[in-house]
């Protein structure tokens, strides 16, 4: 059955943030988007508008995108004040034009946060997330040194919960949605995923202390428990992981305070 909506097209006005570069001042510019099919994805609509701009000699709108199926975490617009647009549990690339009406003015902005500087137009630099990961978002396991995969049974509930956290696509919508530009949901998803698994225990304290420290250093804000992050998350990752990370952080701080200091001797080679 072909949906009736495919037959008629409509027009909207795009109010897009244009910014030539990281240091430039940006501003909203209005562009008409005509003959839009309701079956177009939001990004396809931007493609069409961009081709029209190119034809007119105007530089097209820069926007981040890649897989266009909601899994790579590249796309990142704030649409009408909500990261990834009106849908729940989907990314911008999975937003379809049928979510809008003829004559609408759609305000499109980049994800905003001090830790995510604008690169150009709607593109932001989210390298801060990579830096957080590099400071501890891993389990040290050299290739070739792993024991048999079934040597370590993991309760299904734990594995499933770890998977819930691991679904994070690293898009940054949580930061963009949070009034404090906090990265707590992102960091806690990683800390939760690895901390729930037995393999992750050896580095558990170290990981949470290091990742939170990096998060703070990079200039993200703190959590005021409003849960806008989990509501904006395209994977609907639960803020339960934030609670879990808070507890982990406190426990790790307590444990580190009462751990005996390591002796200052070298290895056994003396």
């Amino acid at each position, binding site marked *: 059955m072909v949906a009736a909506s495919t037959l008629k097209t409509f027009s909207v006005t795009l109010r897009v943030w244009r910014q030539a570069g990281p240091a430039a001042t940006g501003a909203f510019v209005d562009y008409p988007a005509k003959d839009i099919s309701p079956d177009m994805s939001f990004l396809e609509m931007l493609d069409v508008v961009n081709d029209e701009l190119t034809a007119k000699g105007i530089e*097209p709108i820069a926007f981040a995108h890649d*897989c*266009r199926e909601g899994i790579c975490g590249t796309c990142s617009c704030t649409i009408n004040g909500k990261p990834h647009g009106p849908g729940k549990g989907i990314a911008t690339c999975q937003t379809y034009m049928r979510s809008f009406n003829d004559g609408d003015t759609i305000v499109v902005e980049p994800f905003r946060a001090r830790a995510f500087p604008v690169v150009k137009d709607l593109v932001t630099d989210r390298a801060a997330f990579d830096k957080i990961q590099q400071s501890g978002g891993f389990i040290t396991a050299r290739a070739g040194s792993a024991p048999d*995969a079934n040597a370590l*049974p993991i309760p299904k509930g734990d594995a499933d919960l770890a998977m819930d956290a691991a679904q994070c696509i690293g898009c940054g919508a949580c930061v963009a949605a949070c009034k404090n530009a906090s990265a707590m949901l992102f960091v806690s998803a990683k800390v939760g995923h690895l901390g729930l698994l037995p393999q992750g225990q050896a580095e558990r304290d170290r990981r949470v202390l290091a990742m939170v420290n990096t998060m703070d250093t990079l200039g993200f804000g703190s959590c005021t428990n409003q849960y806008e992050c989990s509501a904006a998350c395209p994977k609907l990752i639960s803020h339960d992981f934030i609670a879990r990370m808070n507890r982990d952080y406190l426990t790790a701080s307590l444990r580190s305070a009462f751990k005996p200091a390591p002796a200052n001797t070298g290895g056994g080679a003396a």
Partner: protein
Amino acid sequence: MATLDSKIPSGPLAEKWRKHKTEIKLVNPANKRKYEVIVVGAGLAGSSAASSLADLGYKVKCFVFHDSPRRAHSIAAQGGINAAKNYQNDGDSVHRLFYDTLKGGDYRAREANVHRLAEVSVNIIDQCVAQGVPFAREYGGLLANRSFGGAQVSRTFYARGQTGQQLLLGAYSALSRMVGAGAVDLHTNSEMLDLVVVGGQAKGVIIRNLVTGEITRHSADAVILATGGYGNVFNLSTYARGSNATAIWRAYKRGACMANPCYTQIHPTCIPVSGDYQSKLTLMSESLRNDGRIWAPKKAGDTRAPAAIPESERDYYLERLYPSFGNLAPRDIASRAAKRVCDEGRGVGSTGLGVYLDFADAIKRLGEPAVRERYGNLFDIYHEITAESAYKAPMRIYPAVHYTMGGLWVDYNLMSNIPGLFVLGEANFSDHGANRLGASALMQGLADGYFVIPYTIGDYLAGQKPGSRPAAEAPEFQQAEANVRGQTTRFLATKGKQPVSHFHKKLGKIMWDRCGMARTKAGLEAALQEIPALREEFNASVNVPGSADTLNQSLEQAGRVADFLDLGELMCRDALTREESCGGHFREEHQYPDGECKRDDEKFGHVAAWEYQGEGKTPVRNTEALNYEFTKMSVRNYK
């Protein structure tokens, strides 16, 4: 003519890899830090290679065009990863996985490579679990498996519908650890635009920073390309929009041979195209065919709603044509059957390019809740995209380009015919022959990165004097940089009428019509006229606005489409020359009466590796014979 020495070790099949590992040269641990290795790409193959090599002590520079190394399209793989663990006690073994993969590839892959892949598959699962990949588990806490892609054993490990994403995050975490430790120098937003060959060996790359436009030279002792497949030559595919062939194509232009470019995999169950604006085709998991029935109206041009078409006027064509496999017929067969139905004018939907995948019977048999439990998330995705409910009306599906088996030619060590240039993952041609089995792409990417390259690169580097890599001021680097700058300037100076997307769409249409699911001599010959004409038009009238010293997505895309235009032509040339049908390459002239691929092992039991001869010149077709020592090439029959 390039010499194609596959360097397959001698000895019994199951002993080759072990023997090879003990015989190849090693690099002294103290010397490892004196070697610098460039890794281009950070998908499964690139991330795993970069982190493993850094862990060994090599100095690694990793370049990725994405804004983060976690974005590569490996993430999109849904189904799972195969491994010969035999945890299910159902008779799986390394040999069986080897045999299935070789047969699935329609006997067009190297025996030794495939066997090695099956051997290391077991280590991959161990490695990934140790890294914290949250694979699905049973209540007892052990790993769960499922049967996938028609395999007779359950050997597929999975993490919900996100196996690729989870495996990539595992590799990414390993890479992040090495970046944090200072052992990998990571460059994001960095696209490789040329390979630098010095004295016949790959010794560096030219990189454009996509944000600042800065062009830099990087010299190294060896270069690894892990830049994925080239399916976006078709414009519409299940690939990410950014996936491109530029790195491998520029390496091809520097002398690396391109092997079997015409081998393309087309997946039967994707959401059909809805309009000209379409940028992407979304895959619906193959598992839907377990309970869905595929049909089309019997009458051409039947525009009635599906519910209004009585049972007697429906053609369940897969069940009719392949009674024993029915709706579970292999990917290539199901894809071609859908195409035939649509060619007969019986396609459905507004474009006429689609067939129904109907769950009405399954809902009647199992009840809606059971169907929802099995496929709910897929039905949701379908609804998101089409605004149609697959519970109420059948889904519309159509085949789409999904994977490319061809790629740069590599030997057993994964080194191309240019010494020092290694190619991993989908970017190489080595393990899948003419068709890839489901859940094998992830396996190959990680096998190459974690367990093959760490051994084989040493064999090459041990022959290079430490510190002998050329300076980035060498004339070859200057020439390559000038080449890159020249191209950029040309694009910006053309100031034509059409955006880059116009040419990509046109090329995609030519490729899909002429070099898609079914190919003919006439069609391919026509394409070989149409593509050069399109290239002329592109060169004369492409419009790339903006400048070179900032983020300029049109400029990036122009370079990629220029390469696709060349690569598309080579694919058609390869398809035209390969006068047989095998796996993903189907020539209508070469088929059995029942529509099965008719191979010609006598004439085409070889790898075709194309060698660049210069602008406008016909490339040379080199061949590497596939000598099957242990397996008999037989007709691939799934009936």
